[in-house]
């Protein structure tokens, strides 16, 4: 007999349809919603769109509709430890963090998978758009892009271990968003017309990271500094490096800025360096905490298409694993704004080869 499946339910349309599809298929289910931040503790929408009581209620109603139990788990402490604190640390260090990846690795497929096991469920299902399938040759679990490339979330899932991937179900991986909405209507789910949740769901709309940083770490965490050009000439001042990311063009507050970009952030001196588009180009970068998916370690340099941020289309590159957890990525053509703190994820067509975290570029 197949074991129970734990469905991570945000109350949104994707996870609701994922749950409904599994329920329809006869799987024995238990629904979990993760309370990651305490929206009731402060003013409204203190932490963006994440974890509102209404979402939990929606999730609970969907579970009730399909006759399986649903629980809201208080995971605030773990979220702070694994996602929120590292996110703020990265900003304070002049990096541009990628918290959604850590939220997948440590929360949905970390803590939540552990709790699922504690109640006798051996797999976790989510509404992610990506495909997991066993490789009959190696026996490993392969990660592929979703059929609906516009919704594909494989980039955010590269950092899952084989052990994690083996215990995950993505029922929506082969569906388009349109089909998912259709299914929601067919199932009569009230969430069918809900708006999309966004990346960085825990940052309030219109808020920038400075105010989050100041609120969580105190006002002294946000220090003013100088904006300089490549030669070190001071162009302007700024009120905190947390609002800048490499490659940023908007909101620099410098004359003639429409052709200028942030090309570097130095947390030691709180300096933001401004330059031209050409200054942003680099041909290679080093990544840390490298994870390979179809194999444990490559036998030599790996050719692939590498995406250096979630919105990047990908560019041909060669990846050389150094065997110490780091690797060097050499792009065939120089790439714009390879940003420390972001993930570089390598693909062979729709197959995710692996990835790592950008340390620096050159």
């Amino acid at each position, binding site marked *: 007999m197949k074991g129970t499946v734990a469905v991570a339910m945000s109350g949104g349309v994707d996870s609701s349809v994922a749950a409904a599809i599994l329920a329809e298929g006869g799987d024995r289910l238990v629904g979990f919603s993760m309370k990651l931040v305490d929206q009731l503790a402060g003013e409204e929408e203190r932490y963006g769109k994440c974890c509102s009581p209404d979402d939990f209620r929606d999730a609970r109603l969907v579970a009730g509709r399909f006759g399986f139990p649903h629980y*809201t788990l208080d995971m605030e402490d773990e979220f702070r430890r694994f996602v929120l604190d590292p996110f703020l640390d990265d900003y304070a260090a002049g990096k541009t963090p990628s918290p959604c990846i850590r939220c997948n690795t440590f929360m949905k497929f970390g803590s939540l998978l552990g709790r699922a*096991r*504690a*109640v*006798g469920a051996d797999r976790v299902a989510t509404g992610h758009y990506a495909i997991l399938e066993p490789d009959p040759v190696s026996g490993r679990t392969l990660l592929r892009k979703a059929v609906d490339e516009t919704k594909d979330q494989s980039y955010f899932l590269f950092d899952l271990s084989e052990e994690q991937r083996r215990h995950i179900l993505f029922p929506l991986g082969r569906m388009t968003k349109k089909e998912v909405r259709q299914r929601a209507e067919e199932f009569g789910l009230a969430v069918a017309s809900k708006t999309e949740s966004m990346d960085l769901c825990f940052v309030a709309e219109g808020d920038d990271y400075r105010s989050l940083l100041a609120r969580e770490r105190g006002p002294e965490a946000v220090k003013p500094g100088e904006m300089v050009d490549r030669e070190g000439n001071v162009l302007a001042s700024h009120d905190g490096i947390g609002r800048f990311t490499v490659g940023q063009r908007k909101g620099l507050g410098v004359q003639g800025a429409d052709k200028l970009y942030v090309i570097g952030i130095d947390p030691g001196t709180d300096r933001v360096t401004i330059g031209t588009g050409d200054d942003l180009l680099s041909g290679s970068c080093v990544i840390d905490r490298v994870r390979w998916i179809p194999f444990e370690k490559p036998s030599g340099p790996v050719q692939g298409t590498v995406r250096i941020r979630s919105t990047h289309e990908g560019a041909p590159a060669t990846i050389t694993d150094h065997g110490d957890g780091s690797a060097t990525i050499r792009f065939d053509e120089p790439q714009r704004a390879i940003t420390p703190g972001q993930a570089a994820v390598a693909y062979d067509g729709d197959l995710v080869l692996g990835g790592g975290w950008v340390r620096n570029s050159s």
Partner: protein
Amino acid sequence: MILDDGREAPARVYLDHNATSPVRPEAAAALAEWIDSPAGNPSSLHAEGRAAMESMEHAREQVAELAGVPGGSLVFTSGGSEAIEAAIRGVCDRAPSGLRKIVVGAVEHSAVFGAARAFTSRRFTVEEVPCDRDGRVDPDRFLARLDRGTVLAVLQWANNETGVLQPVKEVGEGCRRAGVPFLVDAVQIAGKKPLGAAESFADFLALSSHKIGGPPGAGALTVRKGIMLAPLVHGGAQEKRRRGGTPPLPAVIGFGAAANACLDNLKTESGRLLKLRARIETQLRELLPEIRFHGQAANRLPNTVNFAVPGIEGEMLAIGLDMAGFAVSTGSACASGAVEPSHVLQAMRLTEEEARGAIRVSLGWNSTLEDVNRFLSVLPVQVNRIREARR
């Protein structure tokens, strides 16, 4: 329900009577009778109204008898929280300007804290009297907090999470000597232990219908004769102007029938539950020697067990038990469904982590030896699975 292998799923085992006790058959019958009745307004002069008034007054006598007070002193409310709020606000609203201190126990229900703290914006102070590690409030320490500026004292008779009983008689007698009005939260004890002549030491008693096997939506506040109370709901002249609005008649009638059913065999039922509780405690101690019982050294309600298995999170254990067909509680439920560590257990010096391990089992009128035995057989299985999941 049919299981995957074709067997019929065993009935669920409900062990959460301190949260809500299922409606007793006697209360259900009374409710059904009301639905079939002409259902007049008790304030109306016609025959239908008079019949409704008679049913309501009959229920009032039944609940008053359970509370050990004369019927005329009992005001129906929408529930326990309203009864508590009505007493606290009713006293504080009328308080002379020099009386600004409310003395409460540290392990009171949030209905007490919520109502009392609402007055801090009006320059009242709320003083909490700490309890010991077993959840007991010392009567002398409590009484030592009373002074000339004390407007009201509040103490629960029994705690909802641990079942620990408080020395309400000693405290009440002391309050009366000091001339301080005394509210006893009797929500959890009512129907579980005989209350005796509570009027001799309590000025107000709060009770709730759904905790004793009546329908939700009704509660009662007893008000000692001669005490004036500003009404919470002004409305009309109902309840002798002590609570405006038409009373929720079906809930009130069901409340009366449940109270009557409780009174019928209170002593034998109390003894029966005590035996079941003792079985749970001795067996669990054998099955899980590392188990910790909370409030163990204190006198407790016969139906309540609160325990933790070190290293096991209460939330996961309660979820596993629910999925296996057993309803238990981790502590006070929260509106969003997520669990905050219990303020009661933290007042008993448990760390936040220890408090997060707590499980409350509360028995009631429909609990059987078979329920208890099934619970005892499934609990160690759940505990082991949580341990294995961590490896």
